[in-house]
């Protein structure tokens, strides 16, 4: 066990954990930030996607020791003063979910994507999002949500 200070959603969080425990496990099981989901633990499904210094990563593939010192954003850290981000709002508006279990990972992946490519093509959306699985099959709606988020951001809507 070692002591780490994680910077999560703008707050410094002290946590005691083995250095080779995954960031996903620490977020969910030690910090009770359960918005980030376990889907496979193998970096194959994207349910655990978080932002590390703005980059989308599979938190199941990151060791907590390697996450200390980075700015980590989870789905719980997107909403500001009760206002959803453009991506969150677009997922609601497009009805881009069924069971919703993949949604937080999708939202995080889409957030990183739009940060890098503010107006992505459909092909870019598909290829950048391809590491995230939705078993309910709502991909066409998620693509539409990402498009809508790009559009509303360009128009100066939510960040």
């Amino acid at each position, binding site marked *: 066990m070692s002591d780490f200070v994680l910077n999560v959603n703008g707050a410094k969080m002290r946590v005691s954990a083995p250095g080779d425990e995954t960031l996903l496990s620490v977020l969910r099981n030690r910090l009770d930030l359960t918005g980030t989901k376990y889907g496979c633990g193998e970096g194959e499904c994207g349910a655990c996607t978080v932002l590390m210094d703005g980059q989308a990563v599979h938190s199941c593939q990151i060791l907590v020791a390697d996450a200390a010192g980075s700015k980590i954003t989870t789905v719980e850290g997107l909403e500001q003063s009760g206002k959803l981000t453009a991506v969150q709002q677009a997922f609601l508006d497009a009805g881009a979910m069924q069971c919703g279990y993949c949604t937080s990972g999708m939202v995080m992946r889409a957030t990183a994507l739009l940060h890098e490519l503010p107006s992505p093509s459909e092909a870019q959306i598909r290829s950048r*999002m391809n590491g995230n699985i939705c078993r309910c099959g709502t991909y066409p709606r998620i693509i539409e949500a990402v498009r809508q988020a790009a559009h509303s951001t360009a128009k100066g809507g939510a960040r």
Partner: protein
Amino acid sequence: MKTLPIEAVELAPPDSINPLHCFQLDRRNFLKLFGGGLLVCLTGEQTLAQEAGRGFGGRQQVPADVSAWIHIDADGKVSVFTGKAEIGQNIRTSLAQQVAEELMLPFDAITMVMGDTDLVPYDAGTFGSQTTPQMGPRLRSMAAAARQALIELAAKQWSVDAATLTVAEGRVSNPANKQSLSYGQLTRGEKLVATVSSTAPLIPANAWKVAGTPVPKANGREFVTGKHKYPSDISLPGMMFGKVLRATGFNATLDSLDTAAAEKMSGVKLVRDGDFIGVVAPDAYTAEQAIAAIQAKWTVPAQPSNQNIFEYLKNNLESGSGGFGSQDARPQRAAAPAPSTAVPAAPSTDSAAIQLAQQYTVQYIAHAPLEPRAAVAQWKDGKLTVWTGTQRPFGVRDELVAAFHLTPAQVRVIQPDMGSGYGGKHTGDAAVEAARLAKAAGAPVKLVWTREEEFTWAYFRPAGLMELKGSVARDGTLIAWEHSNTLSGNAGLPTPYNVANPITQYHASRSPLRQSSYRALASTANHFARESFMDELAHAIGMDPLAFRRKNLTEPRLLAVLNAAADKFGWAAAKSTPSKGFGIACGMEKGGHVATCAEVAIDAAATTVKIMRVVQAWESGAIINPDGLRNQNMGAIVQGIGGALLEAILFGDGRILNPHFESYRVPRFTDAPQVEIVLLDRKDLPSSGAGEIGIVGIAPAVGNAIFAATGTRLRDMPMAPSTPVPGLTPSPFKF
């Protein structure tokens, strides 16, 4: 391994579960849970409609056959209690819409309380597309009765004729003098119980204001902010983390076990009960380390593999034709009691221009819900409470009752809205395991299956072998039809086409893998076979596949979706070329009518196939939520692409060989075609379920499109797997 709890669970087909199980209401003194207000219960057969009024608050017993109830509190807030489970099909939304409609309230006024065995009446489970046709009308009836009871309360208070009063926005009004009272005010804070029969008039679909509209997912905001707590997100004070030791194969026997290293770990407790071996630890990381540190040697017997599965199934037929069929799929001719391996001879076919016989197969596939099985179990004050993801909360309660020799009143199962199921979460495997670990630990325990465990120790959609024979007269009239299914089931087996004396048979067989329900059951396999075979017959007789279907079809609802899909798709102008193929398929079951058109692109070397566009027309009676209906159809198509082209569980000698998303390829973003859904709204017909049958058209439509482009007929699902399935002729196509 036979003594492992998950192996001890007999997977009864859902439709064999007795739905008349009694709810032990008297023991719970349920009414104490409520404050003042009106509780409305619906009975089955009896007509106990009582006048709403002060005189009838004294009744403190509710009949045992109540299947759901509605409570309207003193503030006018409405709570609806049902044992149905929300698994992504969005019934939390569609059921609330129906209650809001009949109570003449806005959607937001309704709170659904679902899947908590201590709070809701008994329900057999959420499967078979039954929520919409059965629970929907029940809730509507109750809500309508509640509305009537409130009107009568007002009439009594005002001493006027109830027929002169009106209801809107949660208030009863007297147009004569503009008096009005809210629902809450009418109950005056008293505990009123109305036991009603289903005779109150319902609002017809063509007058719906809340039902019939695209209300967004209830609590959608909780999902985009990560606040919703799924079963695997539940956390309790003092909770420990569990892991279960898995054998290296099915039906294994344990030869030796060394747990010394695991037991030395700080805070780890070993739990052993027969061949059930698990650990609990203060944190998830340590639990994983501890289970990995256990040295166990197993002997796994030789078992069938993909290579010889269909031969094995034919050689291991079992008597009885029960299987995993749906309730409404009856053999069109009584199945032979002792199934033979040979399909019966075709009827006289003298006038036949062509006769064909073909065989089709489907492989075992996994549901792979993104949230694996998970449970948190707590023993407290002689009561076991388990939070878990299941489509059958009461079924899981019964499993726990049996496993721990408890009474139903000692077990509470709570099912938070979960990370999907698709028919794959009927059992309480993780719940039983977590409860066993928690009992030993003396603390609440969370158990979350790994993806590999989910792929291996859950159950599978059965494989199946379909054998078809048919004859067509020169004018395209079907004159003989035989269709048998071995193992996968009889759902979707009857043909909707007009043909004299069709023979359909289901042959049960011994499955080497644990198998049970999967979205649409065997309908997917049987529609793949039937609609592919219809396409083969059409081509053999030289008819357009749509024209051939129309010629042999008079079922108006199926014809309507077939025509709607073809029109939207532009079938008449869709001429296949070697690089582009168009296919069509249709089917109906459980009140759902579907027709699917697919366009595929084939590369120049004819080695890769891509689905470009899918148009699906759907009709299931009056539409309760068009947005939800589109979502279910689109999702079913995308998920169906997996089984159609990609997915197969690879197995052999008791092992699953591809228990990871890396090797078990599921549909992803780049696989999803352009999807257009055409909804037909039959406001004159009762609403049917829509979570399942939307999946049956995509596989044959795609297979038929590939044939139209290439002349290659693919008769095995998956049709274009990324790695060849042993025992199948390798597909010439990659997806």
